């Protein structure tokens, strides 16, 4: 026998052994229990932002306690994969990450809504994700300086208000543009601020008169002087249900200004990203028993008194939504009639400003 054929045989034999081994491994994974599977394993939560942001902090909060509630008590670690408004992480979870339940993702709500409304192609299909759950929801608000000519939202429909905004795809840009297009509001956008904190600083120094589309959670703690001195006040709520604190302050929601059902459904569609503020996802294809166990663990973790104590210390709102509910919500979003989606897309397209 020549050396060549000998080598060939060896390779074939080796390949056979490996194939059998991996088949065996695959078989085994179906028969073992969830607890057996997770015992001694490591579960990764891939966060679609850089360390230190709100998404990262929520994910690390979850990661510190989630392991205690998953059968088999795996170690849970956080990995950061920022980029492209967390679409990169979403794409990684969707197609690259192992589908055995050892990897979950924490992505921006935009990465769930954008494929429906945005024009840029992405590598994932949000409706096919298996949703682990959602950590909190938020109500977006327009704020205005007390010395601005616009005193309430009705004024904003007739008087120009200079609002600061970040780039494309940010709520501070999308929401005022939508209100201009849909309700004929007169927001004049000054775009290009790096983030919401830079916009609020510009508002404090009078460079812009207001901002539309920043979350209500934590505002009262972060900017106590706005409310103590009344220098800056909430103008309108950009949310489907609104927040009780804001209702008690008699701040209206924009939905009250909708003139027909179309306008209402477009707003509801666009505001839906406030409902799932911090979504956690699993790749499609994770075995059902593990998905069920992880979803249960998710809810149990967010009811864990130790987590709640930490969250309270950090002033973080915890308002978990179960994976099943989240799944139903996304399915419903993606079943939105095409004409409403089209109208929403148009509403988000900026018209040239005078």
């Amino acid at each position, binding site marked *: 026998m020549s050396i060549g054929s000998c080598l060939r045989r060896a390779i074939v034999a080796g390949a056979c052994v490996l194939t059998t081994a991996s088949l065996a491994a695959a078989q085994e994974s179906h028969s073992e229990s969830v607890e057996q599977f997770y015992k001694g394993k490591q579960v990764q939560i891939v966060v679609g932002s850089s*360390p230190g942001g709100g998404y990262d902090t929520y994910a*690390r909060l979850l990661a510190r306690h989630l392991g205690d509630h998953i059968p088999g008590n795996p170690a849970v670690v*956080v990995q950061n994969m920022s980029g*492209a408004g967390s679409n990169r992480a979403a794409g990684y979870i969707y197609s690259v990450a192992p589908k055995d339940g050892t990897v979950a993702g924490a992505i921006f709500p935009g990465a769930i809504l954008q494929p429906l409304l945005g024009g840029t192609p992405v590598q994932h299909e949000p409706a096919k994700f298996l949703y682990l759950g959602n950590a909190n929801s938020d109500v977006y608000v327009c704020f205005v300086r007390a010395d601005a000519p616009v005193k309430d939202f009705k004024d904003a429909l007739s008087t120009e208000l200079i609002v600061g905004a970040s*780039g*494309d795809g940010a709520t501070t840009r999308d929401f005022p543009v939508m209100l201009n297009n849909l309700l004929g509001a007169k927001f004049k956008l000054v775009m290009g601020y790096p983030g919401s*904190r*830079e916009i609020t600083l510009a508002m404090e120094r009078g*460079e812009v008169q207001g901002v539309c589309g920043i979350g209500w959670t934590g505002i009262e703690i972060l900017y*106590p002087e706005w409310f103590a001195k009344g220098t800056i006040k909430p103008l309108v709520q950009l949310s489907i249900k609104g927040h009780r604190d804001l209702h008690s302050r008699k701040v209206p929601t924009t939905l009250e200004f909708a003139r027909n059902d179309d306008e209402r459904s477009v707003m509801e569609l666009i505001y839906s990203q406030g409902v799932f503020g911090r979504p956690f996802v699993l790749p499609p294809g994770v075995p059902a028993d593990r998905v069920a166990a992880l979803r249960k663990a998710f809810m149990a973790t967010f009811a864990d008194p130790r987590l709640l104590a930490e969250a309270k210390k950090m002033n973080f709102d915890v308002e978990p939504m179960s994976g099943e509910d989240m799944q139903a919500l996304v399915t419903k979003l993606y079943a939105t009639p095409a004409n409403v989606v089209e109208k929403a897309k148009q509403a988000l397209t900026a018209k040239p400003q005078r």
Partner: protein
Amino acid sequence: MEAFTAEAAFMATMASKAFFALMEPHRLMFLGLGCIMGLVLGIVPGIGGLTGTAMLLPFTFAMDPYSAFALLLGLGATTATGDPIPAILFGVPGGAASAATVLDGFPMAKRGEAGRALSAAYMSSLMGGIFGAMLLAVSIPILRPVMLYLGSPELLAFSILGISMVAVLSGSAPLRGVAAACLGVMIAMIGSDPQTGTLRWTMDSLYLWDGLRLTPLLLGIFALPELCDLLIGRTTISKSIDKASIYKGQWQGVKDCMENWWLIVRCSWIGGGIGSIPGISASVIDWLAYGHALKTEKGARETFGKGDVRGVIASESSNNAKEGGALVPTIAFGVPGSATMAILLGAFLIHGLVPGPDMLHKNLDITYTMVWSVALANILGAGLCYAFSPQFARLATLRYTLILPAVMGVVYIGAFEANRSWGDLVALLAFGVVGWLMKQNKWPRPPLVLGLVLGDSIERYMFISVERYGFSWLWRPVVAALLILALIGLLRPLLQDIRRQGGLAKMAASFQAPTFKLSQLFTLFFISVIGTMVIAALPWHFSAKLVPLVVGTVALTAAGLSLFNEVFRKPETSPSGLSEQAQQEIGRAIHMDLTSDTDHLPMRVVATRAARFFGYLIAFMGSMAVIGLIPTAGLFVVIFMRLEGQERWTLTLTYAAVLAISIYLVFDRFMSIPWPPTLLGQLIPALKFIPSV
């Protein structure tokens, strides 16, 4: 007056209360712990304090605020102290703000003065850090009014003033400097445009959506060319030095800092001042301070870039002062001045502290704890560095076959850590080639970095200013003053250059029939790259293409003129007498960058060895795709050391194992980097137990 005295007394009380609180042994211990971690993270190129701070954050939940900030700021303030170590020893900047240190620190190491350069770097870091903290301490009462005064037009003017440093940093090649700076600005524009959302030059890749990260670029532009030249030269970085001369050098470095204390004060105020402006990246602080020193220091124009200790001092004193500066907007407004500060902001909320007026009054003691922590961390950090310095200094005397594998492996991971994506490595490699060609062909690299970092904020704040104020913002006093300063900075070197060459008429007369050289190919390549980018930009939305087109046109003009010069300009007449020669030496501006010391080798050897170097890099990436990064690092060490240097097997294998295991511990275990999937891992999932497969 009385109010002022009362205020000063209150500040002094709070400052001393904070100082004694920080002196508690357990708090000092946390500070020291933070310092050690900061130094370690700082030495590894590409990894700043960001990841470290994020990881430490949860551990501070249970601490009191004094201890928490001591730990976090200890780490944050000392990463910049560790940065100059690889910059000086290997020419590999340890962090974004240490790139300017390479320019003079690395030539010093080559001369055998690594000990002196390191010592000057630590000492100026220490003094810079303290001066920066002092600036912060005394400016606390005026922080908020000043910050509220600085609007987008002022930020724009600051960025323009910064970019006008290109004139100084281009040295003897102003046209190439301008062209390189423009290329930098255009690279900064890659990604989603903030105005219209147009995806500029992203070539349909998600990686480019957010634009290129600074770390892989800096490592590519500054680190890889040095490593490549090390392989081409096949020598040690520095000749052997004995222990006594290291200690002597260390003492000399300290003396250098004492003699240049006024330079340190100025540079640290530049660092602290710019670090405190939110929205302007602190990554160019080193270049701004370096440019300032170059402009103002006596004789700097002849010696900077050739191993002048003042270059090291300027760069290092400024970048350590910036952490103190970055605290300002974080404390006063909750706008983080740097990424590390964003995490610190998280720590604020956990401890029930709200950034804003309260921090400057009710919680002033905590603010002062931070000031003290930064100052003390700098002292501790420099002290630790001194303790290990002799060992570090001798690293530069090792054979290239021993230095290169580890440094290259770490550069790779440092670049990869930026985005944790293949794109980082492709960017590293591409900019490595560009950087090496620039260095070989004497194109100054600092302007490219300046353009890259400031380009984004110039575009951003120009749109905001125009959109908001029309053109009336030009008349705001601070804006006008800064713009005039920038104009003077740009024009003066130009006029000086023309005068030196005997006026425009004489310059025009110095043309001749065309001569062609190989190096002109690089200029042609440059022009074609910019040209392609400009053409690709034509169909974009008006506000998305405005800046790219303007900058592109300037780049094309500058590069075109430079090419014209190269082809048609007579070489400068050779001097006839000694005095004339000396005259010319003084008159000529220096080449503002490191020069290759491979000139003695024939072109062919340089080219084949460079190809070999970049071949190693490509092979590294290929192997990483197949078997993963950690096994590749080990394999690379073995192949490199056996092929290049025929090192002993025992040494080679130990080296490979130690490198692979340390990468595993730091990056896989501690930082848990998501490794990209490998071919082997996909084919045979059973092998996934091997880290990074």
